[in-house]
């Protein structure tokens, strides 16, 4: 297989109600990404792959057109992939096969989300993700399904809300070191438990915010990567896995689809013992419990992640640092952009560009995102 590397990354600040338009955010992320690769000219980019979650947020139908000019894609291939919340990491997966196929030597992967235009709130749009005949008439919202899954997960491993709240404490503190973060803060478990209950057992501080933001990474084939940078970060394993749409027929306690995707990506990257071999984890954390739930899937051991958290091993200075970036809870959650931010974090960590967030001796990292109706797992394994 052709080897594919990340050779640069850039992102905008993640903010609620960023006053810039989507094309302006995209252009800014792209500019920063190219600046990162020694001010590479956009002319050397063979094509663009973009990712953005539901069209509804931007209020557009077919919003690939938003990225077209902003990413300087005119006359080049430009397509958009999209698997709900899993989109950001799916974009890296798709970007990988663009380059690995031999059709592209360089590919710009761009993800953005602008969640502030919908009025009164983006949540209303999530209603239309549900089955139109048997679920939508019940008036569901997105937080419902998280709460249902969280409750099931707590039951399966006898987890307390106190322990789960520690994820928010850890990630928001990590985000204090992230220059683009929206919600970096020093908070306590008490703060999380005392924040208002949205949909029990989910409190406000268990949830990542709605955000605007964009991220771009540049991928390159092996030959080109070595010319562009001394510190390429290789994408050595990629996978996605989608479970059944009939989510009420499934047990939500364990994300089996994340497990299967991870196993495939590990096999491709030659990893046999992820707990030992992976130095940095960026699991998808739109809600506190999700980081643990996804790590369980990535590690292939139900209930292991909460134990690691309890022992302090998921902290940046622990043995298995998870979301050293600050994650979605701390950096913000512009859906597709948040997933790609996790991939960019691996690039920064593994090329020792993570500044105050740097995890020492980071050689192998895993980023993962998740989406749809508790259904899709997208995974990449990176190596320096």
């Amino acid at each position, binding site marked *: 297989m052709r080897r594919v590397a990340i050779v640069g990354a850039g992102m*905008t*600040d993640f*903010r*609620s*109600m*960023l*006053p*810039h338009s989507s094309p*302006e955010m995209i252009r*800014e992320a792209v500019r920063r990404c190219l600046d990162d690769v020694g001010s590479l000219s956009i002319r050397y980019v063979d094509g663009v792959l973009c990712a953005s979650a539901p069209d*509804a947020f931007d*209020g557009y139908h077919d919003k690939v057109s938003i990225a077209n000019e902003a990413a300087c894609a005119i006359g080049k291939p430009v397509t958009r992939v999209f698997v709900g919340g899993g989109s950001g990491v799916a974009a890296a997966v798709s970007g990988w096969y663009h380059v690995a196929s031999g059709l592209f030597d360089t590919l710009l992967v761009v993800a953005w989300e602008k969640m*502030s235009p919908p*009025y*009164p*709130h983006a*949540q*209303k749009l*999530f*209603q239309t993700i549900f*089955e*139109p*005949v*048997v*679920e939508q*008439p*019940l*008036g*569901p*919202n997105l*937080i*419902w399904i998280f*709460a*249902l*899954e*969280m*409750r*099931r997960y707590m*039951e*399966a491993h006898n987890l307390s809300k106190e322990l789960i709240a520690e994820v928010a404490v850890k990630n928001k503190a990590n985000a204090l070191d992230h220059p683009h973060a929206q919600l970096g803060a020093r908070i306590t478990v008490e703060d999380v438990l005392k924040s*208002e*209950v*949205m*949909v*029990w*057992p*989910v409190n406000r501080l268990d949830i990542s915010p709605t955000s605007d933001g964009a991220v771009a990474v540049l991928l390159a084939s092996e030959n080109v990567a070595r010319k562009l940078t001394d510190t390429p970060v290789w994408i050595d394993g990629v996978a996605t896995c989608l479970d*059944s749409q*009939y989510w*009420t*027929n*499934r*047990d*939500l*306690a*364990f994300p089996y689809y994340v497990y299967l995707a991870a196993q495939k990506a590990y096999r491709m990257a030659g990893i046999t013992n992820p707990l030992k071999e992976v130095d940095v984890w960026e699991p998808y954390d739109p809600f506190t419990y999700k980081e643990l739930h996804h790590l369980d899937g990535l590690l292939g051991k*139900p209930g292991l992640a909460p134990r690691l958290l309890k022992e302090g091993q998921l902290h940046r200075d622990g043995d298995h640092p998870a979301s050293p970036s600050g994650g979605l809870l701390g950096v913000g959650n512009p859906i597709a952009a948040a997933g790609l931010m996790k991939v960019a974090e691996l690039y920064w960590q593994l090329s020792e560009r993570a500044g105050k967030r740097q995890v020492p001796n980071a050689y192998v990292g895993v980023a993962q995102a998740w989406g749809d109706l508790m259904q899709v797992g997208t995974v990449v394994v990176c190596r320096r």
Partner: protein
Amino acid sequence: MSVRLVKFGGETLAGLEGRLAELLSKAAAEVGEGRVSSWAKALEESKGRTEFEAPETLVVTPYLLDFRYRRSTGIALTRFLEGLKEGKFLGTRCSGCGRVLIPPRTFCEWCFRRVDEWIEHSGEGEVATYSIAYIGTNPKVRLPKPEPIAVIWFEGTKVVRPNTRTVAHAAGILHRLGEVEPQEIMIGMRVRPVWRPEEERVGSITDVLYFASVRR
């Protein structure tokens, strides 16, 4: 720095075709000064906080997306909805894996084969997981009364993965719980459907009002 709202109405809309004018004026009516002031606040806050240039003036252009669909429910869901109207839960059963499928489908996604055996279920089952909603689709507005919701797994349909405690499959649906205090709800609690009076049923999932606890 300022935020300006484009108000479509009267003169501005004169000469535009009916449907478009309707969309624009509806949108303008819904976006009020509250929206303008929240953008103004965001603009103020972003000043000096974003590294790239922020605009001096922000213009808010209201636009309403109003897309309408008339969805065909197909073979399986049509029959399911007809069953609800009669106060029954109808499902299908796969002859390959033996699973009971509710919501019903005419194919089995495990075996990838056609499924045409229909079964009737009482609708009694257990709470697979539950939650209590304090908000609807606008997180800023608290519901007057919290709503318990749950995934219901129907009795006798569970397939458990050998060697683990996880459930590989169970026929089940999303619905609301009723006649129960939030603190009484537990995973595994036995429940039964409470139907709307027959004359009020229309062939919709809401023909079931909610699921109530079966006390033993």
